[in-house]
C-alpha cells in the first residue's frame, strides 16, 4: 500500500510521467485516449500489457473495450480484483497471480497468455469521481514493487483526468449532434408553413406555429384553391426529425391532391391510405382538413383524430366538434363518415388548436385546458385573428408561469367578417332620434342582447354630441358603423375633416365634489368609459379623420356586475 509513505520519484520516472502527461493533454476522442493511457502505463511501469476498465455509473458496472467490432466485456463493480479495486479505490498489487485465489485464470485460458504479476489501480479524477480501473501485467524482469505502486498512483491520477475529459467531450459532441438534428427538423418543419396568410374576401384567417425545444411535428396550411380555402392543421406523433418529415410529407400530398382537383373525401382518403402504407407502424398524424367556400360560407371538414374543433357563434354558443375519423396513417380507411359541414354566420370563429396549447402544463402539472381557450375566444373573438392568437399565446404563457414548452403550439383561426350596418348622420343634435332608431333596429335584426342597448345608445350619444359641439358647422356627416360581435356589438364613429382631439383621454370628472361645485361638463366621457369596453381613439392625419371605437358585450357586463357585488 502506498498510503502514508513518502517516496521521491526518480528524475527518470518524473520525466516519463511528464512526457505522458503532455501527450494526454491532446484532444483525443475516448477510444484514442484509452489506447494512449494504456501505452503510457506500459511504458512508465515497464509492463508487458495493460488495460483500462471504464466505470459505468448508471449500471454500476466496469466495461472493457476489447477492440473495434467486438462486444465490450462488462462486470459488476465489486467482482474480482478489478471490481475490488473499484470499490476500495486503493491499488492492488498481486506479485504471483497463480498463487492468489482472487485471480481469474479464465482470461489466460481464453487468450493463451500467461499472467505472472499484476498491478491494479483505481482511476479517480480531480473531483473524486471514479472513472475506471487501470491494470498492468507482467513487469519486465520481475514483479511490481512499492516504488512501482507510487509511480503508478501518480500516473493514474493523470490518466483519470484525461479520460474523464475525453468522456465528457464525447458526451458533448453527441448532444451537439442531437441538437443539430433537432435544429434541422425544425427548419424542415417551419419551411413548409405559409409565410403569408391568404386573402379571403369576407374572412380573416390566421395561422401560427411555434415548435418546442424538442421539436414535435405540428404543421398548418392555408391554401387558396378552385374549391375554396383549404385549411389544414396537423400534429405527427413523436419528437425529432421523423415527425417533422411525416407532416411535411402529408402537407405535400394534400397540396398535390387539391391542386389536381380532388374533393375533400377523396383527398382525405387517399392521403390517409398513402400515409398508412409509408409511415412506420407506430406512427400517425392527427389532422384537420377542411375546405371553406367563402361565397356560400360552407366550411366542410374531416378530422383524423384532431380535436376539439371549436366553433364560436356571435350569439354566444360554442360548439366543440369531434373528429370524424381515426388519425391519418394509422391504418387504411374503410368506411368514411360524411364530412361535417359548418354553415358559418357573420362573426363566427372556428378555432383549430393543437394539444400543445390544451395540454400545456404549469409547474404543478395542471393542463391549460379547453375552457380557458373558449373564454378568450369569447372575449376576443371580434378582434383580428392575429390578435386572438397572440392573446391565447400570452394567456398560455401567463398560465405556465415559466414552465417550459414541451410540445409544438399551433393554431389556425378562421373568422367570418361580422354583420355590419353603416350609416351617416348629419352633424346636428336633432339627428339623435334617427341614430337611436338605427341602433335599435340593428339590435333587433341581429339578436343583440337588448339589455345592452341603453349603454350603447348612451356612449354613441355622448361621442356624437361631442363631435357636433367641437367641429366646424357645415362639415361632413358623422359615420356610425355597428358590427355584431360575440356577445354584443362593436361601434365605430368616424368624424371627417377635423383636427385631432383625443376625447377618450379627457380627465375623469370629480364625482365626489359637493353639489355647489359640480358641473355637468366632462361627465359624458367619464360615464362612457365606465359603461362600455375598449374605448379607443384613432386619428388619420392624411385624411383628417377621427375615429372612436368601443364594444359592449354581455360577458363584460356580467363581469362588471360580479366586480361590484
Amino acid at each position: 500500500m502506498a498510503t502514508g509513505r513518502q517516496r521521491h520519484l526518480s528524475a527518470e520516472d518524473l520525466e516519463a510521467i511528464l512526457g505522458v502527461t503532455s501527450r494526454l493533454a491532446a484532444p483525443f476522442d475516448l477510444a484514442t485516449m484509452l489506447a494512449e493511457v494504456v501505452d503510457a502505463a506500459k511504458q512508465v511501469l515497464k509492463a508487458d500489457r495493460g488495460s483500462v476498465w471504464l466505470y459505468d455509473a448508471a449500471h454500476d458496472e466496469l466495461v472493457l473495450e476489447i477492440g473495434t467490432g467486438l462486444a465490450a466485456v462488462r462486470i459488476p463493480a465489486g467482482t474480482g480484483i478489478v471490481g475490488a479495486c473499484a470499490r476500495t479505490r486503493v491499488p492492488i498489487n498481486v506479485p504471483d497471480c497463480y498463487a492468489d485465489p482472487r485471480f481469474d485464470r479464465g482470461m489466460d485460458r481464453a487468450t493463451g497468455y500467461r499472467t505472472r504479476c499484476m498491478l491494479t489501480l483505481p482511476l479517480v479524477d480531480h473531483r473524486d469521481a471514479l472513472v475506471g480501473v487501470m491494470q498492468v501485467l507482467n513487469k519486465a524482469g520481475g514483479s511490481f514493487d512499492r516504488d512501482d505502486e507510487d509511480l503508478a498512483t501518480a500516473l493514474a491520477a493523470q490518466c483519470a483526468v484525461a479520460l474523464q475529459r475525453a468522456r465528457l467531450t464525447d458526451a458533448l459532441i453527441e448532444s451537439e449532434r442531437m441538437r443539430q438534428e433537432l435544429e434541422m427538423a425544425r427548419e424542415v418543419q417551419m419551411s413548409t408553413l405559409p409565410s403569408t396568410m391568404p386573402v379571403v374576401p369576407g374572412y380573416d384567417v390566421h395561422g401560427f406555429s411555434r415548435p418546442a425545444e424538442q421539436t414535435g411535428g405540428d404543421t398548418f396550411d392555408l391554401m387558396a384553391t378552385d374549391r375554396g380555402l383549404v385549411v389544414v392543421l396537423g400534429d405527427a406523433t413523436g419528437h425529432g426529425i421523423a415527425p417533422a418529415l411525416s407532416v411535411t410529407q402529408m402537407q405535400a400530398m394534400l397540396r398535390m391532391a387539391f391542386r389536381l382537383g380532388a374533393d375533400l373525401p377523396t383527398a382525405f382518403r387517399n392521403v390517409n391510405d398513402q400515409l398508412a402504407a409509408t409511415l412506420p407502424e407506430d406512427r400517425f398524424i392527427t389532422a384537420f382538413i377542411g375546405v371553406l367556400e367563402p361565397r356560400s360560407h360552407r366550411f366542410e371538414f374531416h378530422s383524423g383524430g384532431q380535436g376539439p374543433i371549436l366553433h364560436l357563434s356571435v350569439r354566444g354558443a360554442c360548439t366543440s366538434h369531434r373528429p370524424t375519423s381515426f388519425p391519418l396513417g394509422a391504418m387504411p380507411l374503410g368506411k368514411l363518415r360524411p364530412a361535417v359541414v359548418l354553415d358559418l354566420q357573420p362573426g363566427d370563429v372556428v378555432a383549430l388548436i393543437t394539444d400543445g396549447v390544451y395540454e400545456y402544463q404549469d409547474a404543478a402539472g395542471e393542463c391549460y385546458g379547453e375552457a380557458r381557450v373558449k373564454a378568450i375566444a369569447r372575449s376576443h373573438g371580434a378582434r383580428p385573428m392575429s390578435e386572438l392568437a397572440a392573446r391565447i399565446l400570452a394567456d398560455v404563457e401567463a398560465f405556465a408561469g415559466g414552465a417550459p414548452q414541451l410540445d409544438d403550439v399551433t393554431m389556425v383561426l378562421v373568422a367570418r367578417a361580422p354583420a355590419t350596418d353603416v350609416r351617416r348622420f348629419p352633424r346636428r343634435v336633432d339627428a339623435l332620434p334617427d341614430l337611436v332608431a338605427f341602433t335599435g333596429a340593428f339590435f333587433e335584426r341581429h339578436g343583440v342582447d337588448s339589455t345592452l342597448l341603453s349603454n350603447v345608445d348612451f356612449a354613441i350619444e355622448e361621442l356624437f354630441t361631442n363631435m357636433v359641439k367641437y367641429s366646424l358647422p357645415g362639415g361632413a356627416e358623422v359615420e356610425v358603423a355597428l358590427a355584431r360581435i360575440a356577445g354584443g356589438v362593436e361601434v365605430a364613429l368616424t368624424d371627417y375633416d377635423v383636427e385631432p382631439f383625443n376625447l377618450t383621454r379627457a380627465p375623469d370628472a370629480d364625482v365626489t365634489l359637493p353639489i355647489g361645485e359640480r358641473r355637468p361638463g366632462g361627465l359624458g366621457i367619464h360615464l362612457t368609459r365606465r359603461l362600455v369596453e375598449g374605448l379607443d381613439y384613432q386619428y388619420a392625419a392624411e385624411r383628417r379623420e377621427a375615429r372612436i371605437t368601443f364594444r359592449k358585450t354581455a360577458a363584460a357586463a356580467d363581469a362588471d356586475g360580479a366586480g361590484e357585488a
Partner: protein
Amino acid sequence: MLTIEAGEEGVVALKGRLDAAQAANAQATLDKVQGTVTLDLAGLDYISSAGLGVLLKTQKRLMAAGGKVRLAGVGPHLRDIFVYSGFDQLFEIEAVK
C-alpha cells in the same frame, strides 16, 4: 321622445328618453317647479349626460331656495349612471317599488 307630466302634489313624472335632443325642453319645464319635488323616473327609459345636466341645474336652484329634488322609480340603467357619476351622493334616490 320625452313627456313630462305634473302628477299629485310635488310629483313630476318623466317618461321616454332624456337625451341631448330633449334636454332644452326638459330644462324649460323643470325651471318652473318649486319647493321639494319628486321626479318619478319609472317611465324614463334612458338618460344621457345632457339629461344629468338638467337634473343638476334643477337641484341647485331648488336647494338654494330651501327645497330639493328627490328621484323615484330608478331602474337599473339609470341607477348605474347615477352611481358612476356620483349623482347618488347629490340626490335622494328611491329604487323602483
